[in-house]
């Protein structure tokens, strides 16, 4: 016990003496054995990282080549479903490859930092310096190649997206409410429209069946509420059709036997009437009635709260809805 106390006091004195000397002349204290150990550990880490990166690089190269090959085969696939499935697979592989490349680039950067740190060491043997230089050159080349691959894969991603977009939307689909939606092709914007008017039961479901009885004659506000409710349930936009869309639908042979609501607001032809309506803050909507049930004309102006026993409404959704629905269905199949 006494010996240990003496040794500690001596060490304290010696340390104080060395510290005092440091402030005066600052001689460099070297521990060659410890430095050697550090250098070895650094070199071991660099070697380990470089080896791992080399293998990862080869793997990434294979993955990228596989993606490019699959993309080349994609246009030759005849079945639309198969093409979409292939597209989904390619897209997944592409995302995985891109993520891998990003990790590789980070890893290369870390290797370069380690190499730079190791190269700062003095009294390195020449062999070690050569080794570090080789590692640095290899990592730099890899980073260049990764940048190139990244760009190629990004372009491939855009190309894949365009290829998938060219896949035509399905002619019909059935949404989660069981409404059969048919595709109406137009030059500018195609759209889906329900083949039949919305059944009263579905409308009652949407309106929460507040009065205890299903409202059989929906007014415009109720029809719009139904569309909002349907959009929330389907995670896709559903609207009332415009007058032009209804005309296109009937022009292509769609049977509209009842007056139906459109989402168009009525715009009077006379400026004075428009001014008066603006002053009194009132708007009416357009009712499409090709069967002439409510009047002699196919287009009526009607109050939004009006409801007649003959009245009904259709719903429309953009063409993308059908496309995404098919995409998601196939994707779920793939996941299973």
């Amino acid at each position, binding site marked *: 016990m006494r010996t240990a106390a003496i040794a500690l006091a001596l060490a304290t004195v010696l340390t104080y003496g060395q510290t005092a000397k440091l402030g005066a002349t600052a001689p460099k204290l070297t521990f060659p054995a410890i430095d050697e150990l550090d250098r070895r550990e650094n070199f071991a880490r660099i070697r380990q990282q470089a080896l791992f990166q080399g293998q990862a690089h080869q793997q990434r190269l294979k993955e990228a080549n596989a993606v490019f090959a699959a993309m080349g085969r994609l246009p030759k696939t005849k079945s639309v479903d198969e093409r979409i499935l292939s597209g989904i697979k390619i897209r997944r592989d592409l995302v995985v490859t891109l993520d891998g490349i990003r990790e590789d680039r980070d890893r290369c950067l870390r290797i370069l930092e380690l190499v730079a740190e190791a190269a700062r060491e003095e009294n390195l043997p020449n062999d070690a310096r050569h080794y570090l230089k080789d590692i640095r050159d290899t990592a730099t080349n890899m980073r260049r190649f990764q940048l190139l691959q990244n760009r190629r894969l990004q372009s491939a991603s855009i190309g894949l997206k365009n290829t998938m977009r060219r896949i035509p939307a399905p002619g019909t689909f059935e949404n989660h409410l069981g409404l059969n939606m*048919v*595709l*109406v*092709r137009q030059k500018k914007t195609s759209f889906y429209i329900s*083949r039949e008017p919305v059944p009263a039961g579905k409308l009652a479901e949407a309106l929460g069946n507040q009065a205890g009885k299903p409202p059989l004659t929906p007014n415009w506000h109720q029809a719009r509420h139904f569309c909002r409710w349907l959009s929330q349930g389907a995670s896709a936009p559903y609207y009332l059709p415009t007058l032009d869309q209804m005309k296109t*639908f*009937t022009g*292509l*042979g*769609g*049977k*509209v*036997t009842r007056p139906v609501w459109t989402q168009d607001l009525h715009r009077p032809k006379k400026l*004075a*009437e428009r*001014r*008066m*309506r603006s*002053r*009194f*803050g*009132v708007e*009416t909507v357009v*009712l499409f009635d*090709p*069967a*002439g*049930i*409510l*009047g002699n004309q196919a287009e*009526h*102006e*009607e*109050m939004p*709260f*009006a409801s*007649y*026993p*003959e009245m009904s409404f259709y719903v429309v959704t953009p063409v993308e809805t059908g496309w995404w629905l098919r995409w998601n269905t196939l994707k779920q199949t793939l996941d299973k």
Partner: protein
Amino acid sequence: MARTPFPSFALLPLLVAALLQSLPTVGAPLLIKRRGAQLRTELVRTVTKPSFRWRLAPSPDSFPRLLFEGIDLVTLHQAHIYQAVMEVPRGGGEPDGPRIEYKDIPGEVIRGEEFTRRTSEITGPLANTSFIVNGVTMVTDDAGVATDTSQSLLALFEDLAASTVTVAARNDKAGLILLTVSRHVLKRYNKDMGPPGSLPKTDLLASMGLDFEPKRSSEREGVTMAVTVPDKLKPGQSFNLTLTVTNRGRNETSSFLGRTVSGRPWLHGKLFYIGSVPSGTSLAFTRHFTVPEDANGGVAFGGMTYWDLLGTLKDKGTVLKLPIDGPPRSPAKPKPGPAP
């Protein structure tokens, strides 16, 4: 230089006429009859034409009243009567004096040219007389007042941009008389409108006793609107729609208006004039409608929308549901064709 073509023989008749004129004066005294002093004016004949005048009369309800008064337009054909005088040469006398003098011709007068003078005489109210005003036949009562039961005058002002309209009233005997009627929703007394006292005679709203002067301290709090709708209607039936505005607020309303809106043209676009409703009172205005003969059975939907000096009364419109008793229209056959 061009020479004017004027044949010399054209002057010959003129020369002969001048010679013949001068012949009686040669060697004979001058006896020329002249027009002397005006003695009186004689009435040659009188032409009386019946006519009328009309104006807006005070109305106790929403139906404009028109007062027709008869006028006799009298045209007096008259002529002045002058004393006849003779122009004779003056004998002797001063060398520098007049050479002729005038002498009365006893018992002889000269009648001047005819002229006309117009006067009018109000003969009083035209009772039980038929007039066509703005294409609508109206019959006056004993006091000469006709009630516009179809509100054809109000129909001329359904657009708020129109402030004055010239209306024609025609009677088979009395002819056609125009009247300019005004409708000022935001009343301002300016030079164009004349003094305030003259306004009820020409302003439609003033004649119906409605106050449309803008009120600075107007409010719409506590104002409620109610529309009286008939229980059942038939095609071809005429009916009245009454808007009653009750003010339970602290301040009066200002320039309050109602307007119908509907997809049915016969129900659409009629203005209901309320104006100022003092606090604690209510005011009603009635408009006349007619269901067309070819109207479908079922419910005719419409709305009553409101506006006052503070602007649009949004979300306060009244829903109108007019049940029409009649057969519903049979649907036309839809066009055949395959589904897309």
